[in-house]
């Protein structure tokens, strides 16, 4: 499959701050690339460099084979961008909003209406054509935002934390739409998110820290890196178990959840650590009801990467 987004050695500074440093990534047609990382890692700056809203210090961006530097108009024509603070015209109806964005994108008078209906049907807003945007729920606004970004049939979609503040059912719907888009129309999506349960739905995930891409791979492959090294403990009282676990020098990190602990163990040491912990709780007034090696999740990988670099 062809690379629809091709970024080479992107670098951007703001004053003394190096916001993005020598970052390269590719997204192929039919792929969703998830950009994750802590606040301030450079995710939004990367998005803005890719869509040409910010000028590069150095490096090269190609969208659908067109260089953003040499042919910015052609490159932008192939892009849909939904920023974190996307704006809709609240006093306009759904249909009027779409007509506005269609006009901005140079879609002709004869064609915009059919395209608008098609895209609104796709996002499930076709029954509310004449409702004002200001009267929509958060989830419906999100879908309208997506529709406006898609109105000119871009081959590349850039989404900057698109599901901030929306609830699980809406997030689920939104992701179903995205996955359907890439499966049916083979477009490329680059999406940034602070949520690991969203990152895991991407074809490819890149971890950013301090302006750099520190790891990228399929979610399954990333999880594989910590295979065998995450131990789950249940028992009582969790607080004492936590103290006991943290005292073991082969335990690299202890994370408390509501009813269990997750420990990250040095490579190859999980079995001995389990034996040691079982022994250590005796006589401490604590009790382990279960202790086992579990599959690492993306959050485990995220934390491990941040701590190790």
């Amino acid at each position: 499959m062809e690379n629809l987004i091709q970024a080479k050695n992107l670098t951007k500074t703001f004053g003394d701050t190096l916001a993005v440093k020598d970052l390269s990534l590719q997204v192929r047609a039919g792929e969703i690339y998830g950009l994750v990382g802590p606040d301030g890692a450079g995710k939004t700056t990367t998005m803005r460099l890719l869509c040409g809203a910010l000028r590069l210090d150095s490096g090269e961006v190609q969208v659908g084979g067109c260089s953003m530097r040499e042919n910015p108009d052609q490159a932008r024509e192939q892009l849909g961008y939904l920023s974190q603070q996307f704006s809709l015209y609240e006093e306009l109806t759904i249909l009027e909003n779409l007509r506005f964005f269609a006009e901005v994108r140079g879609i002709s008078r004869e064609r915009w209406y059919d395209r608008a209906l098609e895209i609104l049907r796709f996002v499930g807003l076709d029954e509310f054509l004449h409702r004002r945007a200001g009267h929509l729920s958060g989830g419906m606004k999100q879908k309208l935002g997506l529709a406006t970004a898609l109105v000119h049939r871009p081959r590349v979609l850039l989404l900057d934390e698109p599901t901030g503040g929306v609830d699980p059912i809406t997030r689920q719907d939104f992701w179903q739409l995205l996955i359907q888009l890439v499966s049916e129309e083979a477009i490329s999506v680059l999406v940034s998110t602070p949520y690991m349960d969203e990152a895991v739905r991407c074809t490819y995930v890149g971890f950013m820290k301090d302006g750099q891409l520190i790891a990228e791979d399929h979610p399954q492959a990333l999880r594989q890196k910590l295979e065998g090294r995450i131990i789950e403990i249940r028992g009582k009282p969790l607080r004492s178990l936590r103290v006991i676990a943290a005292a073991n020098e082969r335990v690299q990190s202890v994370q408390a959840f509501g009813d269990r602990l997750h420990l990250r163990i040095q490579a190859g040491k999980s079995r001995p650590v389990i034996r040691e912990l079982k022994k250590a709780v005796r006589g401490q007034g604590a009790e382990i009801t279960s202790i086992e090696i579990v599959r690492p999740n993306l959050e485990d990988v995220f934390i491990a990467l941040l701590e190790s670099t």
Partner: protein
Amino acid sequence: MQPVIETHNLTKRFGTFTAVDKVSFRANPGEVLGYLGPNGAGKTTTIHMLLGMILPSAGEAQVLGYDIVKEPEAIRERVGYMSQKFALYEELTAWENLRFYAGVYGVREHAHLQNTISRVGLTGLEKTPVADLPLGWKQRLALAIAIVHRPQLLFLDEPTSGVDPTARRDFWDLIYEIVADGVTALVTTHYMDEAEYCGRVGIMSRGRLLALDAPSALKREALPGLAWDVFAEPLLPSLNALEGLPDMQRVGLAGDHLRAITGRETRKADLKRALKDVATKSVRVNRVEPTLEDVFLALADAR
């Protein structure tokens, strides 16, 4: 043990709309109780009733032993509330904000304010205007304000929404420390990741409390079926083929594969057989642990 919160058929109607519908539950001392549900499920309305800010239409509730209708002032003195849109004064410093809110509760000891700042890890940032603090630090300041009058019960409304996993972990470590001192916390959230941090989680949808249990117990018992990851190409025809199975409860797209929830009788071979005619490559089917999201969607769909 006297419960910290006890409600019986707590109900709130706004006109013909029932925002909270016969909700009954107990919160025990020192526990972290989660309240998971989408926007509009009735989570915030429930908190507002428990704080005595609005009156219930029916049912009753005691908070810390006080009746929410007859003794709301006694409750508010003893309860801390961190709302989602925490009302910080952006142009004032962190210290000025804390001092202002502490003063509202009659708390003035300088040492206690300093101690509160240090508990939430903001030492050194006292003189920073709130406008210059990153979101994660604003959340910590909002927490400091919610605990400065030494409440026995803490209501946290989506406390870590929008922050990355490291900031979230650090924030939850703070909550666990506060709870270890005997404080009880009720946390509302619509993020599954956040619900995992709670000892017990109530699942709320359209005003009703559908289930309440430990996250692991919800995954084990509240999901009326089995969870599967199905790797099959092409995705959409495979999705349609699986939807046709009689025992299929829900199937959705999950990135490069499909996520399916089926009845308990379904076997791996049943899923593979359903895909025989549409899949172009070899099909992989794995039984997986359900997530809280699976449980949530199953319970919300079932209504």
